[in-house]
C-alpha cells in the first residue's frame, strides 16, 4: 500500500509531544550518556533527545520484544497443590522512531518462528502494540550486507513507515501499513514531485553503498550448506571463534531462549525465560553428559546452518539481516561477510560434496 507523503520537522516534533502526552511510549536511537560514541534505542520524551543518523544502535530492537529475561508465571505451593498466576499478555502502546530498516525487518523475519509450533503471546502482544517508523540508513560500513539477504538500507520490510530525509529538515514518508497511516495521518502533507524524486534517488544511492560488500545470496546456497554438513571447512573457519556468543546476544534475529524455574524461599518461585545461545556448550548438553555439538566447530556450523539453510528451508527466508553487529563486536575477529563469501565461493566452485 506504499504511498508517499511529506512530514515536516515541526510535524514530527508535535507528533512526539502528542504521543508522550497521551501515554504512548516513544523509543528512538539516543546517545548513551556515558559514551557519546554509542547509540542505543531508548525511550524519549521529546524529539530533540533522539540521535538520528549518528551510528548504528549498539543493540537491535530484539530486546524490546524478547527481553533478555522475563517472568512467564509465578507459582506457590499450597496445601491443595500448586497455585499459578500467569503474567498479563497485554502490552502498552508504543512507537519506535528512527529504527534502522534492517532492525525493523528482523522482527518480521523472527515472526515466522514465533508463530510456528505455537503462537508466542508475549512476542505478538508487543508486536501488535508497536508502530515502527524507520529512517533510511546511511550508517553502513564494511560489515554490512543487508542487500545480500534480500533487504536494503532503503527497505520497507517490517516498517510501518519509512522516512527519507528531505528539504527543510522534513521527511518524505513512505506509508507502508494502515498502522503507519493511522499514526501519521494528521501530521502529513502532500509530497512534491521533486521531493519524491530526491527521496527515490537517496534510497537508490544508499543501496549502492552496501551492494559491493557481498553479492546476493542465491537460493541454492541453502541446499549446498545442507549437503556439506561434514565439510572440513567448518573446523578451519571456526578456529578463532571463542564460542562466547556475543554475536548471538547482539544479533537482531537470534531468538533462542531457555525456560527456568527459580525458587524464592521454600514455597514460591517464578518461571522465567532467558536468552540462550547455540554458541555455548551447555546449549546442547544432554542429561546423560553426552554433547552432540562437542566442540566449537559444530556450534559455529550450527549457527551458519540455522541462519542460511535450516531457517530458509522451513520459512523461506534467511535468518540474518546483514546488520554486521556480530562481526563488529567479535573479540576473536570472526567476520560473517567474509565467511559467507568464502562458503559461497566454495559452493560455486563445483558440485563436489563431501561424503557423510
Amino acid at each position: 500500500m506504499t504511498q508517499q507523503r511529506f512530514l515536516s520537522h515541526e510535524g514530527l516534533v508535535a507528533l512526539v509531544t502528542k504521543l508522550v502526552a497521551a501515554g504512548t511510549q516513544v523509543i528512538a536511537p539516543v546517545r548513551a550518556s556515558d559514551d557519546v560514541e554509542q547509540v542505543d534505542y531508548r525511550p524519549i520524551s521529546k524529539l530533540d533527545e533522539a540521535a538520528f543518523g549518528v551510528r548504528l544502535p549498539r543493540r537491535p530492537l530484539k530486546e524490546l520484544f524478547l527481553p533478555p529475561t522475563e517472568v512467564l508465571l509465578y507459582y506457590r505451593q499450597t496445601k491443595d497443590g500448586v497455585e499459578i498466576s500467569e503474567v498479563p499478555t497485554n502490552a502498552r502502546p508504543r512507537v519506535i522512531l528512527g529504527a534502522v530498516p534492517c532492525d525493523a525487518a528482523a522482527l518480521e523475519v523472527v515472526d515466522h518462528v514465533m508463530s510456528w509450533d505455537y503462537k508466542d503471546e508475549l512476542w505478538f502482544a508487543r508486536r501488535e502494540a508497536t508502530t515502527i517508523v524507520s529512517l533510511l540508513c546511511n550508517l553502513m560500513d564494511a560489515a554490512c550486507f543487508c542487500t545480500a539477504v534480500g533487504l536494503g538500507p532503503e527497505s520497507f520490510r517490517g516498517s510501518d513507515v519509512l522516512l527519507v530525509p528531505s528539504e527543510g529538515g522534513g521527511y518524505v514518508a513512505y506509508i507502508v501499513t494502515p498502522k503507519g497511516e493511522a499514526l501519521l495521518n494528521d501530521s502529513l502533507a502532500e509530497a512534491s514531485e521533486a521531493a519524491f524524486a530526491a527521496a527515490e534517488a537517496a534510497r537508490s544511492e544508499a543501496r549502492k553503498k552496501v551492494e559491493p560488500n557481498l553479492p546476493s545470496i542465491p537460493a541454492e546456497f541453502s541446499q549446498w550448506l545442507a549437503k556439506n554438513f561434514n565439510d572440513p571447512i567448518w573446523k578451519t573457519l571456526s578456529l578463532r571463534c571463542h564460542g562466547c556468543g556475543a554475536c548471538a546476544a547482539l544479533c537482531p534475529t537470534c531468538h533462542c531462549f531457555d525456560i527456568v524455574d527459580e525458587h524464592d524461599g521454600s514455597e514460591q518461585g517464578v518461571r522465567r525465560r532467558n536468552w540462550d545461545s547455540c554458541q555455548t556448550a551447555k546449549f546442547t548438553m544432554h542429561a546423560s553428559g553426552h554433547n552432540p555439538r562437542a566442540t566449537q566447530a559444530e556450534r559455529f556450523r550450527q549457527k551458519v546452518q540455522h541462519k542460511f539453510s535450516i531457517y530458509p528451508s522451513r520459512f523461506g527466508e534467511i535468518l540474518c539481516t546483514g546488520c554486521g553487529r556480530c562481526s563488529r563486536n567479535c573479540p576473536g575477529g570472526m567476520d560473517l561477510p567474509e565467511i559467507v563469501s568464502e562458503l559461497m565461493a566454495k559452493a560455486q566452485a563445483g558440485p563436489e560434496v563431501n561424503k557423510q
Partner: protein
Amino acid sequence: MKELQELARKLLTEGTVKVVIGYEQGPRGVRPVFVTDAADCEKLIFDRRCVTNLATYLNPRRKPIAQLGKAAIVVKGCDARSVAGLIREKQVERDSLAIIGVRCGGVLEDPEGDAELTSETVSVRCGGCEVREPKLHDYLLGELPPEPPVNPRRNEQIAALMKMSPAERRKYWDEQLSRCIRCHACREACPMCFCVQCTADKSQPQWIDTSATLRGNRAWQTMRVLHQAGRYVDCLECERACPEHIPLGLLARFVADSVEPRFDYVASDDPAACTPMGVFRTDDEEEFIR
C-alpha cells in the same frame, strides 16, 4: 615482520610444530590466525595492533586447535603470564608448545584502530609494563622498543572507586552488573576460565540463577572474579568480549590487588611459582577468621 615469518616457516617446514598461532591483518583490523601451511606464513604480523591474548587458544576446551598438533604461539610479555598460568595449573604441557616471545612496546586499546600509541590510544594495561621482553620463551624476536605511554584511565577509575563509601561502591557495581545479560562471553574469552564444567552451568543444584537479574548477575560475576584470584593477569579479554561493555577487568583488578599484599603473590610468567590457592602455608594471615 620478516623475522617472525621466517621462524614460523622454518618451524612448520621442519615439522617442529603443526600450527603457528599468531596475528594477521583481517577484514576488520588485526585478529588471531592459525597458520598450518608454511606457504601462508607471510600472513603473520606483529605490531601495536596485536591486542588479543592468544593464550586463550591454548585452553584445553579448544579441542579443534589441540587436534591440529603441536603449536607454536606468538606471545607478548604480558600474555606469557597466561601461558605460564596454564602450564602451572596443568592445563597445557610445556613440552607441547613452542613459545615465540616478541618484544613489545605496548598495544592499542582497539585492534581495529590504526592510531599511533599515545596516552589516549594505548591499552590501559600497558602502563608501567615490566615485561616488554618476555622471559618465558623458546625463541625471542624483535628489538626492545621504548616504554609505552601510560593511559591513566584505569587507575583513575580505581582511585575514584576507592574514595567511595561501601554503599556507593555497591551502587556503582549494581548499575554496571544490572546490564549483564549472562551470555558468559567473559568466561569463554578468558584464557584462565578452563573448568570442564563451570559452576554457572550446574543445574542440580542450581547454584547461581541463570536469569539476567541483578541477584544472579552479582552472584555470577562475583564467583567468576573470585575464581580468578591468583590467576588474573589483566589481559582484559573479558572486558573486550563483553557485549554490554561492563568494566569486568576493573572488578578482577580489585581481586588481584587484594591477593598481592595478603599472599605476596602476583601472577607472573614463572610456570613453577606456587599459586595462593594451590599451596598451604602456615604463615598465611587468615585475617578473615576471627
